[in-house]
């Protein structure tokens, strides 16, 4: 189907672009690793304390790393006119936008997922919570990309949108942070975490369905400046 072809073409193009500008992918992951490795140095060797705050540290770092990468989501397309061509496509803009968000998650969320186990061990996280940490990251980082896309779409036309973007997006990230880090904490004490995971799943599904439309609409507004 032509619409699916357009979706995959967008994803593939963004992945090729990411491969050719490697620093852009490396940046958020590097930030994620650096922040997490700095915590033990700042706090000192107190295994108990580190273990207790590990879920929070990892999740806050993941959240900030995603925020750091958001601006690149539509920036270069906006600057070189590709965005105009995407908006003029006869295919639904929301589907094409979803393609861009998918590629963004594959290049920023997925690498975090890959390095997270290593960092969790580094912070002395107990083994039983490791799988839950990965599960929350797997469910949570796409939500961050989806919600972030709405914010970027609104601010991409502004010259200094960075500040406004943080203010717009951070409050919406807070629920993800609360449920995800709480799930990991509960898991490390052996308590059931089904409720938190279910809430994360429902948030992901809701964001998946609801985020592309406002993003498409906001891009149409941003292009008109």
């Amino acid at each position, binding site marked *: 189907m032509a619409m699916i072809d357009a979706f*995959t073409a967008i994803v593939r193009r963004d992945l090729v672009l990411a491969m050719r500008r490697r620093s852009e992918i490396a940046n958020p992951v590097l930030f994620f690793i650096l922040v997490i490795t700095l915590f033990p140095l700042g706090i000192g060797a107190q295994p108990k304390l580190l273990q207790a705050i590990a879920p929070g540290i990892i999740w806050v770092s993941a959240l900030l790393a995603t925020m750091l990468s958001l601006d690149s989501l539509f920036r270069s397309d906006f600057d070189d*006119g590709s965005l*105009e*061509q995407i908006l003029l496509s006869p295919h639904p803009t929301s589907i094409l936008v979803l393609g861009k968000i998918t590629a963004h998650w594959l290049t920023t969320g997925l690498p975090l997922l890959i390095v997270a186990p290593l960092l969790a061990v580094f912070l002395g996280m107990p083994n039983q919570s490791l799988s839950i940490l990965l599960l929350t990251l797997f469910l949570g980082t796409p939500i961050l990309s989806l919600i972030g896309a709405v914010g970027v779409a609104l601010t991409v036309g502004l010259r200094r949108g960075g500040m406004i973007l943080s203010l717009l997006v951070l409050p919406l990230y807070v629920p993800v942070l609360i449920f995800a880090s709480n799930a990991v904490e509960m898991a490390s004490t052996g308590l059931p975490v089904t409720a938190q995971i279910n809430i994360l799943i429902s948030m992901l599904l809701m964001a998946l369905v609801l985020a592309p439309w406002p993003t498409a609409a906001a891009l149409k507004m941003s*292009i008109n400046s």
Partner: protein
Amino acid sequence: MQSHTTHQLQGENLSCVRDDRELFANLDFTIHTGQVLLLEGKNGSGKTSLLRIICGFREPDTGAVSWCGEEIPQSQYYSDMAYVGHLDGIKKELTVQENLRLSLALGQPGKLFIQQALEKVQLIGYDDTLIQALSAGQKRRLSLARLLITHNVLWILDEPFTSLDKQGIVLVESLMAEHCSTGGMIVMTSHHDINLQSIDVQSIRLS
């Protein structure tokens, strides 16, 4: 070859206000298959704003644009039109072919294949060249190749002759003539005098 049904682009009573300055008001035009609408005027007279209104990026402050009798935005319009603006919309980290493939995926297949289109705009042999290695004129010709590989009736061109050499200008003029004679129509702005014999050119002077 497409059937030669007639299409019609109509603007009625259009006006545009930017930063409290009226760029144009009560503008009317109608063009049909085979015609060219040329927008003239000095810098800042609202040519690009008018083009962006026709594209549907911007809403006119009064009036409406309609395609085949139906007001835009509408889905049929977006599968019938193609726009080449100030920004060429090509990615400099990708190759010529990768760029054209994406344009093809975003639209519907048109009259020519990628290779044929590259031959037409004299970029044959550049398929695997990264865009950053191309000159400004070559990039411009590439963005025009996009018009040839996707299905479209209406071309909206903002200064299509920018950074083209004499030969390039002749080339683009011949492409435009061919497009009009095979059932297409064009809305364009230009500083250059265009040389399109045997084609019905309407001009609007914005002041």
